[in-house]
């Protein structure tokens, strides 16, 4: 019978001979790290600018002071914030609504009898010491609407959010386009011919993933997706014949006015 020590020995043997691409990883990490730092700093500037604008409005009334906004003393000065001020998403409903609040809205939109489980309210994408930070603008859960268990995700993209593999560009630009290689990709337009949503279905090794991107308020985009898999990253094995939500159901969810308040 497999004993704990035997398992440890076998795990050690697996990793002992690993070829680690250290230089490549370190170089890529430094580039990504710089990008993260620049975005975070620029985001801080925008957040403080928003607060400053609010203070500038309130101060004269409450304290009888001048309406001059506070300066940005103390912020890192690497010259990057000026360039990037308009290139990331400012604070808004897309990055402020908590996962719990999103789920509260979503529950009423789910089909009758649907059972949501393993709802991920906390954000693990934070420094180790921040244990209980809630997710904001992103909701991930498992769902069974009667055809078997699957997974679903709802995510908001601010007006200047870049996709994972591309540079910063308006969310509406990249989210509402079909690439030629995507065979099952449909654009929905409004009466003026403006694209308001993209509906996609991917099938990979039997796992079907339905995805909808919809135009939200203020230039933001809402992504709703569902798969017939509860595995990591929605890969094999499948957990049901079909995803728990169809693209039309996802579209209805994504286009709800509840998200922008």
């Amino acid at each position, binding site marked *: 019978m497999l004993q704990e020590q035997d398992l440890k020995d076998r795990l050690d043997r697996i990793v002992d001979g690993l070829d680690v691409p250290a230089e490549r990883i370190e170089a890529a990490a430094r580039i990504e790290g710089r990008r993260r730092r620049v975005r975070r700093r620029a985001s801080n500037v925008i957040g403080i600018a928003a607060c400053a604008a609010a203070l500038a409005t309130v101060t004269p009334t409450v304290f009888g002071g001048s309406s001059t906004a506070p300066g940005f003393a103390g912020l890192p000065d690497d010259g990057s914030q000026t360039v990037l001020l308009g290139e990331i998403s400012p604070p808004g409903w897309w990055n402020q609504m908590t996962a719990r609040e999103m789920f509260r809205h979503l529950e009423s939109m789910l089909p009758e009898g649907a059972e949501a489980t393993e709802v991920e309210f906390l954000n693990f994408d934070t420094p180790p010491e921040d244990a209980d930070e809630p997710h904001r603008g992103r909701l991930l859960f498992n769902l069974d609407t009667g055809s078997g268990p699957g997974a679903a995700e709802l995510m908001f993209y601010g007006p200047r959010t870049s996709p994972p*593999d591309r540079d910063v560009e308006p969310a509406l630009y990249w989210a509402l386009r079909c690439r030629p290689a995507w065979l099952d990709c449909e654009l929905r337009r409004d009466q003026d011919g403006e694209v308001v949503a993209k509906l996609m279905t991917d099938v990979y090794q039997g796992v079907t993933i339905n995805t909808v991107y919809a135009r939200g308020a203020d230039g933001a985009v809402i992504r709703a997706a569902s798969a017939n898999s509860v595995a990591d990253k929605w890969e094999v094995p499948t957990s049901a014949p079909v995803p728990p939500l169809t693209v039309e159901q996802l579209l209805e969810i994504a286009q709800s006015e509840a998200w922008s308040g």
Partner: protein
Amino acid sequence: MAIADEEFSELAAALMPQLYRRAYLLTASHQHAEDLTQTALAKTYDAWWRVQRAVDPAAYVHGILLKSFLSERRRRSSGELPVADPKSEDAHDHDLADRIVLVDALAQLAALDRAVVVLRFWEDRSVEQTAALLNLSSAAVRNRSMRALKRLRVVLEPATKGA
């Protein structure tokens, strides 16, 4: 190169082998291990001032890697299709059969169960330490440990007997 970059490079070089090994066992994939290690080090670079002030910078960076794994494990944030692992196992493996069987067995576990296996059995952490790191109760860690071992036995023992 700035002083901070040099310090980052030194820390990354020192931690890389163990970070990558941990990432590989957590993800059971070279491609995902590389992504996870890169993400953890990028966050380390971004939070360098915190890392420098940490009592144990190595533990801090390993904490970032684990949290990144927990964060990414269910995320599928683009419509892109997954691609095959570009690094074929047979390209650089000395103990091919054993590695493939065990990595496949690990890959069949749920992500959290795999994390429990790595922390409990590879890193020799206690139930309580594992529970704290994974934000689980001690009972949940025990249950997941038992379940994971049971599943690994099913997959591994025929291979062991046949070897």
